[in-house]
């Protein structure tokens, strides 16, 4: 038996105060009994979760902690069942404000003085700051849900906070999938209206008459079936932001009504006898060339000048390929958190293919490609076989495992196919565009197994080709 006299001096109380230690550390710590009721909850746990100790003690840990792993893969349950401690499992919790907080979790068993298991202890660390620092180190720019480190997007991201401060109508233009709605949401989220609603309407998705009632609402009796008043989106967006996507699809008649609302801030629901006021901030978006539509008379010039007080052009993904690795990482992290998976990244070959692709569907297409891989993969690295088949055609029958040279071949095949498409199948024009001699071109076509289009691009639709 050891002698107490030999031990170092203890604190003035005569014993180590474990509560004080737990209170002083920056990691959240809570303990549970065998019925999953919280039995202790330190100060850092209060700060990270936003739940006071008073509220937490005695409640079920899943109601207090609200982690993405609670339902499917509870770390504490695993430890209580197996006795094995878990260290640094990453997950996210949802705090009382509805914000996702990335955390790492470690668990251990709690035993009484007789060694009997009486519950479990969980420590967790808020990774938000680490994530933020990582972002800064990577040199990426982020606002709202938009991530980028390309110069062209940087200009957009930098101007968003200033736009958010104003009340002017904004026109966002960009190809489909470039993130027009994300930009609109970011503007709303940074504006004074952030506590108001963000109401989005896709003007191209509804026929004219429906769109009119959707935007302005109607009164009971306005038409057959209108049994009660229905508020329109302008009314629903009061004190908030109304986002009108695909504005280029709106009919000339509706354009007149929109112009009036934007000018006078007043509108009349269908069947109403009185005008109503709106204070919604309007953000419009289009993937069409509005200058061209105005020139052709399909879009009213006065409305165009009314909405383009401030114009933001979102570059397509193929013009900012340097963002592809960053976006891949971003989507992998997001899907890991959402689906509770442990996908670590993409192989160099996959990155090569993803970087070479042209993305007609832009960022949304890249997101779908990563989501496709997540369906096939639970953990580890995304390999070529996890990509959609059309993206890696030459690996449909791989002779050997993919290598760096295979990646180069994939990129070459892709470039040749696209050059042929751009030149309507004209082999010589495609070879010239790619800067190679026609014999090199045909050699590569044969080696890469590319099926040449039947149409050779030399004949014209009017039958003026070779006879």
């Amino acid at each position, binding site marked *: 038996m050891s002698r107490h006299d030999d031990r170092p001096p203890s604190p003035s109380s005569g014993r180590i105060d474990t509560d004080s230690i737990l209170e002083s550390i920056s990691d959240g710590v809570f303990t549970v009994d065998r019925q999953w009721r919280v039995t202790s909850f330190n100060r850092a746990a209060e700060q990270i979760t936003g739940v006071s100790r008073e509220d937490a003690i005695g409640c079920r840990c899943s*109601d207090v902690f*609200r982690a993405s792993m609670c339902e499917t893969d509870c770390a504490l349950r695993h430890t209580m069942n197996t006795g094995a401690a878990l260290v640094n499992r990453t997950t996210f919790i*949802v705090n009382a404000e*509805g914000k996702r907080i990335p955390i790492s979790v470690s668990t251990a068993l709690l035993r009484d003085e007789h060694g009997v298991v009486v519950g479990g202890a969980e420590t967790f660390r808020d990774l938000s700051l680490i994530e933020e620092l990582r972002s800064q180190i990577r040199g990426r720019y982020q606002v709202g849900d938009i991530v980028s480190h390309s110069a062209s997007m940087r200009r957009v991201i930098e101007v968003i906070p200033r736009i958010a401060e104003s009340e002017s109508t904004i026109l966002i233009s960009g190809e489909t999938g470039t993130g027009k709605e994300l930009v609109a949401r970011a503007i709303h989220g940074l504006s004074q209206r952030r506590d108001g609603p963000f109401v989005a309407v896709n003007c191209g998705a509804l026929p004219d008459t429906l769109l009119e009632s959707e935007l302005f609402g109607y009164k009971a009796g306005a038409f057959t079936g209108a049994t009660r008043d229905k508020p329109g989106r302008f009314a629903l967006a009061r004190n908030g932001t109304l986002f009108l996507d695909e504005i280029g699809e709106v009919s000339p008649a509706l354009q007149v009504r929109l112009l009036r609302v934007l000018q006078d801030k007043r509108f009349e629901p269908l069947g109403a006898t009185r005008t109503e006021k709106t204070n919604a901030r309007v953000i419009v978006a289009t993937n069409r060339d509005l200058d061209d539509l105005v020139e052709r008379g399909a879009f009213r010039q006065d409305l165009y000048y009314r909405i383009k007080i401030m114009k933001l052009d979102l570059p397509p993904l193929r013009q900012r390929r340097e963002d592809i690795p960053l976006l891949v990482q971003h989507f992998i992290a997001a*899907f890991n958190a959402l689906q509770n998976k442990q996908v670590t990244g993409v192989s160099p070959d996959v990155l090569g293919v993803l970087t070479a692709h042209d993305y007609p569907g832009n960022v949304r297409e890249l997101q779908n490609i990563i*989501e496709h891989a997540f369906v096939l993969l639970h953990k580890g690295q995304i390999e070529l076989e996890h990509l959609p088949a059309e993206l890696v055609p030459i690996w449909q029958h791989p002779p050997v495992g993919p290598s760096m040279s295979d990646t180069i071949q994939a990129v070459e095949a892709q470039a040749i196919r696209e050059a042929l498409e751009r030149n309507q199948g004209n082999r010589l024009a495609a070879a010239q565009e790619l800067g190679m001699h026609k014999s090199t071109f045909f050699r590569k076509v044969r080696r890469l197994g590319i099926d040449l289009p039947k149409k050779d691009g030399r004949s014209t639709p009017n039958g003026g080709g070779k006879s």
Partner: protein
Amino acid sequence: MKAALTFWDGRISPVFDVSREAMVLTIEKGAVAGRRRENIEASSAARKIERIMELGVQTLICGAISEPLHRELTERGVVVLAFVAGEIDEVIDAFLAGLLPAPAFSMPGCRGRQMRFRGGRGRGGKRARDWGPSGRH
């Protein structure tokens, strides 16, 4: 009207974002006329929302929910009673009695949040009545 409650282990599921199952109730004249378990597991937040919309749900009763999902559902016309905790049958009874949201069925530390969702009205407020099973749905 149709109401869905996300659940797990006999209780309201802790996090809607990753919840896998919902109890969909068809409510007529203030009573449950139909009750069905539905899988709502989805590979993305967008698909989860689509799944809820497919089920024709007007009111969603769930545990914690991240703000973007809550906002999207609300914009699509779904009334979201979030940060609810408790045994599912007890929560259903409270909902049918028009008692939600209530402190007794709130996740710890979320009472203020729930009240803000209600637009700051008390139990007898207009919106609270509209949300209930005997409202005008």
